[in-house]
Each structure stands twice: as C-alpha cells, then as structure tokens.
C-alpha cells in the first residue's frame, strides 16, 4: 500500500521521447548546494539535464522516462538532505514573467532612444550659443524624430494600453495624462521640425518613458519574486493523497499529489492525516478536527454518508472517501457567497495614486487649455506660439515624479515585507494596512499555533521530550502525530511497536521506553488540565506527563502588548466555544473577545466597527474567517490558512511567530508616509514648474532637467524604506 509517489501529473513529455519535471527544492542555504544537487542528479541513469535555479530554488530536469522513475529524483535529493516537491507553474506566474520581459524590452528601447536623442539634443542646445548652422539643427531634429517615433510607439505600449482600458471604463488613471503628454510632445516636435523651429521635445518624450518604465520594471521584478516564492510555498505545502487505482484487475492505493485529484476518485484517509479533498465517507467512522474551517477545536464525530472537507484533520479511524466535485462543497459555496457580499465594499476602495490622478489629470489639461487660450486671445501670441506653450505645459506636468511616487515605495515595501516573512497578495493592501487603527484576531490557528503542542514543555527534561517525539513518530494516533510535529521530532526508534489505542514502546538505552496512556506507561493517573489531553512517557525510572493542547504562538503575548502600545484597538472573534476563548483572551490581556461566532456574526462585528469609522485589520486563517477578511479594511492570514481564506488576505505571513503582523503594520505605515511625501513633493514640483511653463519659458533643456531631477529625488526618498523600523526590530531580536 502506498509505494512511491506518482508524479505523472507533473511530468511533461516532449515529442523526442524525453520527459521534463520541475521540482521546488527546500533546504537550499548556500551556493554550494548548486553543484551538490546537479551532480547527484547527473549520476542517476537517464538524466539528460539537471539545472538548478539558485534564485527561484527550482530544479529543472530532463530525462529519459524509459531509464529512470521520477520518484528516484526526490529519493536521491532526500539522501543528500534536500526535500523536493513536484511543481506546476501556475498561469499567473507565467503572466508575471511575460509582463516583466515586455517591460524590460520597452525599457531597453526607451533608454536606447533617450541616449541617442540626448546626444543630438545636447549638441543642439550647446550650439544655440555658438553657431550651429540651421541645416545641421534641422538634420539633428530629423534624425531624433526618426529614432523617437518608432521607439515611443514600442516603449509606450504598456501606458497606451492601460490608458485605453481606463478611458473605455470611463475612469482616469495616471497613464491617461502620460499618454496624452507623450503623444502631444511628439506631434508638436514633428510639426516644429518640419517648420525649421529652434526647439523640439523628442528627448523629453522619450526620457519620460524611460523613467516611468524604470519604475515599472522595479515594481514588476519585486512582484515576480514574491510570486515565485509563493509558488514554491504552495508546492512545498502540496500534499499527497492515497487514491485507489485499478491495475491489471487488482485494486491498489497509489500516492498521488492532491493537485491531480478529480471528482469521483476514491481516497483513503488514514488516522491523523489531513483530508485532501471534499468528499463523502463511504467506509469507516472517525472524529474529524474541523478547527481549520469552523474554529471549533473539539473533534466532530463522522460516519458513513457524512461529508468531510479539505483541510480538516482525521482523528483515530481510517476513512474511505469519495471525492465530490472539487472545491464545491456547501461550506465553500456559502463562504464564497458571503465573501462576494462583503467584498463589494472593498472594491470601492480607491488607491492613493488614483485618487490623486482623479483631480490631477483634469486640472492639468484645463491649465494647459487656459494657458493656450490666454496667450492667443489676451497676450496677442500667434495661434502657433500659443499652442506650443500649451503643449509645453502638458510636457512639464507630465506626471513623471507622480507616476514614480507610489510604485517605487511599493517595490521597496514589498521587499521589506519579503524580508520580514510576508507576501503581499495585492499592492492596494499596502496602502490599506498603513491606515489601520483596530485589529481583530481569530483565535484558532491565528493567535494559537495551527497544531496542538506540549503546553508544559518547560517542566519536562529535554532528553525525555526528545525521546517522546521519536516514539510518537511511530504512532498514528492523532495526539502522537501532533506531538511529533510540534516537537520536530527526530527519526523514529528502530524497534518501536504500537499497541493500538494504548501507546508505543521501544527499547532504549538498555531499558524500555513507553509513550501512551497512564496505564500503558504504568504511571500515576492525574486528572487532565483544562482543555488539555494528557499523554504519558516512561523511560526507565523517569516518568512524565505531557499535556497536549493548543498553544499560543510563541511571541503572541509580546506582539499583542506591542500592538496595544502602538495605540491599536484589539479584539478576538472566534468560532470556538467561549470557555476555550476566555483563557486565551485573559492571557493576552484583550478585554473585548467573543466566542461561538458564526461567519455572519464575524462580518457583522467587522462591519459595525467599520461603520463607527474604524479601519479594521482582520487576521484569520479558517474558512469561517474568509468573509470577515473580505469585509475588513485590510486583512492578513498565516501561510497555514485554508486556500480560500489566503486568497482574501492582502498579505500572507510565514512561520510560527506573530511578529510579521507587527512588521506588516509598521512597514505599511512607513510606506504610506513615504507615498504621501512623494506625492506632495511631486505636486510641489508642479506648482513651481507649471508657472514657468505657463510663462512660456519651458525650453526642452528646462523640461529635461526638471523631469530627471524630480524623478531621482522621488526614487531616492523611496529607498529610505528598508525595514519595519526600530521598535519592531527590537521585538524580533528578543
């Protein structure tokens, strides 16, 4: 039963008879891993090419399927200390990559054009004070046009298409004034070149595109990096399921990745295993821990005909389950419906830069129009001169610094998030996280660790605890599984034997070690502590009782105290019973807590806070939290969260600690401050430059200097955002 895992779902077969497989590798710590892994793979028969990507921690294998089974790859990697998981590139990731490549190409073209045109422009500018023959000047302008027009047509694509989309939806974004500015600058310059004028703005138009593209490339590079890391995490989390397969008339259970499951498959879920997909029980009885979905920590008994849901954990009995249509349980449908309702408010949120462009674009266009007409009607300029001045106003105000103001900060912030163990799902989330004044926590899996742990670990000798973990590895009992996981136990003892329902025993240092019930370990039975399950261990003369229960995240109390110190309003909303929530709230010192909350109650609570003018951050992991996450102003969820819930969160955090929540709030607050500074600066810059342009003094040289000066200043300001800042760094160290 359950031999080697079946990777066929992930293998792609080429026409020339070779197969390809991508693996996400866990455990790469340094560059020395690269030759290790590649040589180990090269030694296997039939491997044609093994190439490790040190940036994305992925291994691409090309091999001959006749000579080698894919399962041998993971085996060989495990032998040298790396865990490998088959990996399927998701469409979003491929899209991000394609977009990055397009932006980089556009940037290359724009920079090429800027440099060559600047070469000509500087000659023209310096020639004006000396004696540049008009024919040469015209020739230079002509060559500039020849470079600028095709280059702008190519490099401007990202802006043109985005502006077009916005206009079709009757919105205005930053790309609209950019597109209008660039197009008009080019058109005016072509006209001026034809009429042998002194000035042409080819350099301004192309340089503008270069600066803007540089900002977008930075932004996209960061986004791609987080997406890759998130993709790896998904692969690393990717679990296997035992599926019944009929081969040569005989039924067998084969280990297949969860991604390969389809409705109608029959699965075996062993004791203590996570249920891999929604389904109906066709054989067996057990109790299922549904805390990931409802927040309720007491296992729910299930039997023939009952539904079980993906993400829940099976208790003591083995279950045979028929997969129902994947991702279509009543529970998930209900959650999705609530999310849709709750999410409507969220989609109304307008990004800072959109809010600015909403008034900026019309204001700029109006200013240019008024300037042109004033010169023409009141100051007696010719229609041509008036038009030139009007367009120069547009060029000067083309929101170069404004368009860089937010993306540069976003790129820096998502880098800082990344280093603090956070993945940003949505760039808008960053701005919203910066506005938070109240935080609502879920209890199970958010304030507490997703798995139960040893509550009295400090009272037990370390060697006994390690032994307990190793013994627990040999058992399928849910308590033992939780114990082994939480202790990060070492290898199981070689001769360990399990007595079902009682415990595990093995020979140890000449004597015998036992782990299990009080009777099994011949220990004195003690009444169980509040909400805890007991498991006993005996090694020779030493006896101890391990109390297993949900434990708080190790730094929960500290982080909660820090958040309270930062002036945030804290609440706990849990689907668990009030008796289970109370002690946790008391321990953390959170006065406002509620237990037994249904998803709808959670939404109502969050919306009520919102209606009272609070900006609520919801932190939760369960399916029951998903609608509340969607309803809240901003949301976070731990990486262990249910898939649907993670999708609703603005950012996802890694690890056992709660520290990333504090880091996220600190970084977002700093980022928001820097965005505001940058936007203010960009507007002040315009307030100074626009009058100059309106007065008709905006020469191409002035435009070039002003534009690059402001862009560089805004970028440098954004670079100040390196991390969450001192107060959180102190927490991280202690």
């Amino acid at each position, binding site marked *: 039963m359950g031999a080697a895992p079946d990777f066929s779902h992930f293998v792609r077969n080429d026409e020339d008879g070779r197969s390809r497989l991508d693996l996400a590798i866990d455990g790469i710590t340094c560059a020395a891993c*690269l030759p290790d892994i590649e040589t180990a793979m090269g030694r296997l028969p039939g491997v044609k090419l093994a190439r490790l990507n*040190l*940036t994305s921690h992925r291994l691409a294998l090309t091999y001959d399927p006749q000579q080698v089974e894919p399962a041998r790859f993971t085996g060989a990697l495990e032998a040298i200390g790396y865990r490998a998981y088959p990996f399927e590139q998701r469409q979003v990731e491929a899209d991000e990559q394609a977009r990055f490549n397009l932006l980089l190409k556009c940037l290359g073209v724009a920079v090429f054009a800027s440099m060559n045109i600047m070469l000509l422009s500087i000659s023209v500018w310096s020639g004006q004070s000396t004696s540049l023959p008009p024919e040469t000047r015209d020739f230079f302008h002509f*060559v500039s046009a020849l470079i600028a027009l095709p280059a702008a047509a190519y490099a401007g694509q990202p802006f043109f298409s985005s502006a077009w989309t916005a206009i079709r939806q009757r919105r205005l974004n930053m790309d609209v004034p950019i597109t209008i500015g660039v197009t008009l600058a080019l058109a005016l310059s072509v006209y001026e070149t034809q009429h042998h004028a002194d000035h042409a703005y080819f350099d301004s138009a192309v340089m503008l595109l270069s600066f803007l593209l540089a900002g977008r490339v930075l932004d996209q590079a960061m986004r791609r990096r987080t997406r890759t890391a998130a993709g790896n995490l998904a692969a690393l989390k990717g679990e296997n399921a035992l599926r019944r397969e009929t081969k040569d008339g005989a039924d067998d259970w084969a280990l297949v990745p969860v991604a390969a499951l389809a409705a109608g498959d029959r699965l075996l879920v062993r004791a203590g295993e996570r249920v891999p997909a929604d389904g109906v029980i066709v054989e067996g009885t057990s109790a299922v821990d549904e805390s990931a979905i409802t927040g309720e920590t007491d296992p729910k008994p299930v039997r023939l005909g009952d539904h079980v849901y993906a993400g829940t954990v099976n208790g003591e009995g083995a279950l045979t389950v028929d997969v129902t249509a994947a991702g279509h349980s009543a529970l998930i449908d209900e959650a999705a419906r609530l999310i849709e309702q709750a999410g409507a408010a969220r989609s109304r949120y307008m990004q800072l830069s959109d809010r600015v462009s909403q008034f900026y674009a019309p204001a700029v266009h109006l200013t240019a129009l008024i300037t042109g007409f004033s010169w023409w009607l009141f100051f007696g300029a010719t229609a041509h001169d008036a038009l030139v001045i009007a367009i120069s106003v547009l060029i000067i105000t083309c929101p170069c610094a404004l368009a860089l103001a937010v993306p540069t900060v976003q790129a820096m912030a998502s880098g800082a998030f990344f280093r603090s163990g956070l993945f940003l799902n949505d760039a808008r989330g960053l701005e919203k996280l910066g506005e938070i004044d109240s935080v609502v926590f879920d209890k199970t899996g958010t304030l507490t660790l997703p798995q139960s742990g040893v509550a009295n670990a400090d009272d037990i000798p370390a060697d006994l605890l390690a032994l307990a973990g190793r013994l627990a590895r040999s058992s399928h009992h849910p308590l033992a599984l939780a114990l082994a996981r939480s202790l990060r136990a070492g290898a199981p003892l070689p001769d360990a034997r399990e007595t079902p329902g009682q415990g595990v025993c093995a020979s140890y240092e000449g004597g015998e070690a036992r782990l299990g019930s009080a009777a099994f370990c011949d220990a004195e039975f003690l009444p169980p502590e509040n909400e805890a399950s007991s498991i006993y261990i005996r090694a020779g003369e030493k006896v101890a009782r391990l109390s297993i229960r949900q434990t708080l995240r190790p730094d929960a109390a500290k982080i909660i105290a820090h958040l309270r110190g930062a002036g945030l309003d804290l609440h706990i909303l849990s689907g668990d019973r009030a008796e289970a929530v109370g002690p946790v709230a008391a321990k953390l010192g959170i006065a406002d807590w509620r237990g037994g909350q249904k998803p709808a109650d959670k939404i109502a609570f969050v919306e009520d806070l919102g209606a009272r003018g609070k900006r609520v951050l919801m932190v939760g992991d369960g399916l029951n939290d998903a609608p509340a996450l969607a309803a809240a102003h901003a949301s976070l969820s731990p990486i262990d969260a249910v898939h649907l819930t993670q999708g609703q969160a603005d950012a996802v955090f890694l690890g056992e600690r709660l520290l990333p929540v504090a880091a996220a709030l600190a970084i977002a607050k700093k980022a928001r401050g820097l965005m505001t500074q940058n936007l203010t600066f960009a507007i002040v810059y315009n307030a100074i430059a626009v009058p100059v342009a309106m007065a008709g003094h905006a020469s191409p040289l002035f435009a070039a200097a002003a534009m690059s000066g402001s862009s560089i200043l805004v970028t440098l300001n954004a670079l100040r955002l390196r991390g969450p800042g001192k107060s959180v760094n102190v927490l991280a160290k202690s």
Partner: protein
Amino acid sequence: MNVLVFLIPLAIALGLLALYGLFWSLKRNQYEDLEGAAYRILLDDDIEKK
C-alpha cells in the same frame, strides 16, 4: 561637419547592437537565475568530463 553623416549612423548602429543584445538575452532566458550564474563560473564540472 561632413563627418557627422558618418558618425551619427555609427552611434545609432552601436546603440542598436546593444539593444539587439538585450532582446537576444531576454529570449534566451539569460536573466532567469542571476544568483546561480555568479557561482556557476566557479564550478569545475567541465573539467571532470575530460
């Protein structure tokens, strides 16, 4: 000034050459693994094969 007729096309041609280089390297996925490439140069795997 006649030299310009020769120098300007030359400048543009050099720029285009660099641009072609960028497009070529993107097409060949040269930017896929910037960290790994830095270490690959130190590996002696090509010597072993001899």
